[in-house]
């Protein structure tokens, strides 16, 4: 506890860096994965390429990625950019697939109706398809958020500072308190991030908050299936 209080500035700094390295990839992933998923849906061949590539990238171990990326990007090995890029790649790989599933699971009647009412394709994607895939998107984001928070620590092995620095440092100095503090803050961070995502999802999907009035209309069934699928 004394150690914690004495080093509070140092720890806060690490937490901030940790947060940046896990949240930025999350945001970038959404920006990249959603258009990619739509592209994959419009063209089967492109889709197959994107999905295969995603699976391959996802299997590369994170440490290998952290070491390899500076060579590719020309960044310094201890730059947080490496971690951010690596985690973005994983996140996109995961999110493309689930977003594609989400887009494909949209009720055909809704889509047909949108066409029949005279939506242009772009407008339909932005105002119908995308909002309806948000719940699945968030399910993916929650998984990625937790994964990211644990993976960011790995970067400490090659000298990128984050909460992982507390592990490497504690290990190096044989100082268990430091490691314990690191674990605790990581856990709290993961939990807080998850709560934030849940709150955010509720905020942007007001239609899923309301309890259905009567029985199971086709829509409620679809929404339920959606939740189970998520």
């Amino acid at each position, binding site marked *: 506890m004394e150690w914690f209080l004495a080093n509070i500035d140092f720890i806060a700094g690490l937490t901030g860096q940790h947060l940046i390295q896990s949240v930025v990839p999350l945001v970038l992933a959404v920006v990249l994965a959603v258009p990619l998923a739509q592209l994959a849906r419009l063209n089967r061949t492109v889709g197959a390429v994107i999905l295969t590539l995603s699976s391959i990238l996802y299997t590369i171990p994170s440490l290998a990625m952290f070491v390899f990326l500076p060579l590719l990007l020309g960044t310094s090995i201890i730059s947080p950019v490496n971690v951010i890029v690596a985690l973005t790649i994983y996140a996109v790989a995961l999110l493309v697939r689930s977003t594609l599933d989400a887009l494909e699971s949209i009720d055909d*009647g809704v889509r047909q109706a949108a066409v029949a009412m005279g939506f242009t394709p772009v407008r339909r994607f932005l105002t119908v398809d995308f909002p309806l895939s948000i719940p699945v998107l968030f399910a993916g984001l929650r998984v990625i958020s937790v994964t990211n928070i644990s993976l960011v620590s790995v970067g400490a092995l090659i000298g990128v500072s984050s909460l992982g620095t507390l592990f490497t440092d504690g290990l190096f100095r044989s100082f268990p308190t430091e490691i314990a503090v690191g674990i605790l803050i990581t856990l709290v961070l993961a939990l807080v991030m998850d709560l934030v995502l849940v709150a955010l999802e509720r905020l942007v999907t007001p239609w899923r908050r309301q309890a259905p009035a009567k029985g199971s209309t086709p829509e409620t069934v679809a929404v339920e299936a959606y939740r189970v699928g998520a």
Partner: protein
Amino acid sequence: MTTETSSRSMGGAARRPMIELRGVTKTYPGGQTAVNNLSLDIDRGAITVLVGPSGCGKTTTMRMINRMVEPTSGAVLVDGEDIADRKASDLRRSMGYVMQSSGLMPHRTVLDNIATVPRLNGVPRKDARTRASELLEVVGLAPDLGRRYPAQLSGGQQQRVGVARALAADPPILLMDEPFSAVDPVVRQELQEELLRLQRDMAKTIVFVTHDIDEATILGDKVAVLNIGGVLAQYATPEEILRAPASDFVAGFVGRDRGFRHLSFQEGEGVRIHSIQTIEVDRLGDPDAAVTSPWTLAVDAGGRPQGWVPQNRRSAIRSAGDLVPGGSLYRRGDTLRRALDAALSAPSGLGVAVDDEGRVVGSVRAGEILELIEDARVSRGRANYNTAV
């Protein structure tokens, strides 16, 4: 081109069909011919029903009108113009579309769902919503439903919202693809009546798809019967289709009850109305209020029918709850079908005839109605025979 201009200058534009299908064929990739060389003139301001067995190309035909399906050959004209020249999204915004599954946007409130097309047309949100709440009322929904999401509505309410949404931009044309087939029969009948009521004021050009011949004859000003492969089997008024099916296929499709259905088009003018014994419900409890005929009709203070009192069980019937329930009612001027139904559904065998306010005016008898039907049939047969010779 010349003929078109001249017909317009003679005021022909108003009479020109709103939608013309000109030798339209649709063959899907894979070789399925869904519609085959179909030519059809769809009247302005009328309800045209496309009816036929499943897979006969009804949806395909309808979707060629708003370019959701492009014909393989042939042309579709709307207001005399080939729609192939129009931008698909603009064309679609000028036609309301209602489908079987309501197709409402689950993530938008009822009000915003209704406002969809006006919003696409650039109407400010506030104005679009105001118009949407008016429409909610037009289709018979409570204003507070506007804030709900589609999942919070019953199936029938969703279909009403679907109709309101199709009407929102006030398009001259409505395309309706089995809009009422997913709701229960009671709600369906309600929605049908509602549509007819709306159509009296709106006079839109409506293309209505169904596979239910009853619905087709109730709603259609004209009915097009399609056969498998998208071949037009008959295009005529519902009355004519029931009375004189053009082929065995049509006869088979309109079914065995067509003679009975046809009664819907025969006015019940000549039906004799007999006097009927009535007793006020309030007097049922009075043992001195005797009944003198085998069946006496109990009425409320306003003279509206409440149920029957069988003479042999008079003593057991002391209040409105003990009455034998009545059958359907025959309103003066209704069709022969209604008259016959009233007579056949009444436990007493006496169909209850009422006036426009629902007050009892007398009874009708099945035997006499059948005689009328028979007379009408025979004289029509003779007329047909004469024209044939």
